[in-house]
């Protein structure tokens, strides 16, 4: 059996090519698969649900407009995350700042007393962090990252993109991506470990 080039192509890129050829159902399938992912990705960057949806709509509009000149050179995910990252960064620059998470406790002077509360007897740290307070702590730590470190960390940790795909999405080298992730991890450790050690 002879393999055609489409057999080796990323299935999402193949859908985009189908959409390029006039199949509007392919666009609907891409929308079904990526709407939640893109909204969540932008939400983690801008930290505003309404703004995230507005920017996610803009991302899909750009995909729609770019159907004529799309070339499946990389995974579709890397391409659409690149659009989303660029839009988020531009929006943040236009608004003059990257929004930071400000929990009520900190505004009231109660910051610093938060601790990660164990919610599961198992020793796995990931399973222990399901409470809303823990989520707020993590959200604040992620929002405190510099924007490029934040995007690299989110794409690696939440969207499971490879270093190569992240470099495509961020328009930089793989070495730069690894540096962003390394620095991001160090920042996160500095922000989260005091709370984690306070619990243990």
């Amino acid at each position, binding site marked *: 059996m002879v393999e055609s080039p489409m057999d080796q192509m990323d299935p999402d890129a193949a859908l985009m090519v189908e959409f390029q050829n006039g199949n509007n159902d392919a666009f609907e399938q891409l929308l079904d698969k990526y709407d939640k992912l893109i909204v969540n990705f932008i939400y983690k960057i801008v930290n505003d649900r309404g703004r995230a*949806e507005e920017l996610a709509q803009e991302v899909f509009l750009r995909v729609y407009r770019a159907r004529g000149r799309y070339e499946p050179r990389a995974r579709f995910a890397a391409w659409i995350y690149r659009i989303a990252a660029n839009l988020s960064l531009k929006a943040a620059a236009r608004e003059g700042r990257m929004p930071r998470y400000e929990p009520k406790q900190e505004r009231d002077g109660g910051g610093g007393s938060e601790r990660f509360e164990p919610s599961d007897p198992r020793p796995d740290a*990931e399973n222990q962090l399901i409470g809303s307070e823990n989520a707020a702590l993590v959200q604040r730590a992620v929002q405190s990252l510099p924007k490029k470190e934040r995007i690299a960390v989110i794409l690696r940790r939440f969207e499971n993109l490879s270093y190569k795909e992240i470099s495509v999405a961020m328009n930089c080298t793989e070495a730069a991506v690894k540096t962003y992730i390394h620095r991001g991890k160090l920042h996160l450790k500095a922000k989260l470990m005091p709370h*984690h050690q306070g619990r243990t």
Partner: protein
Amino acid sequence: MRCNTARRLISTADDLRPQPAAELAEHLHECADCARLRAELDIAWQLIRAHPETEPSATFRAGLRKRLTQEERSFGRPWPLKPVLGWQWMALAAGALVLAVLFTSDLVVYQPRIREVQLSKTDNYDDQFLDDLQRTLRDFELEYLPAYDSWPVSLLETPDRDPSESSPQDGTPKKGGNRHEGA
């Protein structure tokens, strides 16, 4: 492997080739500080999984479809209402206007021009009349006016000249002598 190298590689150890990965593992086995750093980074990496997630609202798809429909309509129009360029378009138009004014300034600013006077038929007749008059006066002068020597005869005579040739009536004008210029 040194600690500095190991700490640089710890965060992205999942992407290392077999040789550096083995060297890093050996170093972490021997160095407690680097092993502790790696453990803490791993914990922080796990902790951020607790970041809250969100679901697209019910209006997300409807809003997107509305914007897509508007996009379709604007694509269908021969001349989209939305300008292709924003402020660049205005800057381009302003520049073109300035250039147009510069190149056509002699049309806008009044500059009187010296026109070549066209002679009328009457003017031509006048010129002809004046030429004829001048020619007539010149001919009349040549034909009819006598020529006078303004110099006294005594001055015209040379010393070795025979005095008997001279006229006894000095100062009498002689016809056909030197003409007075400009008479």
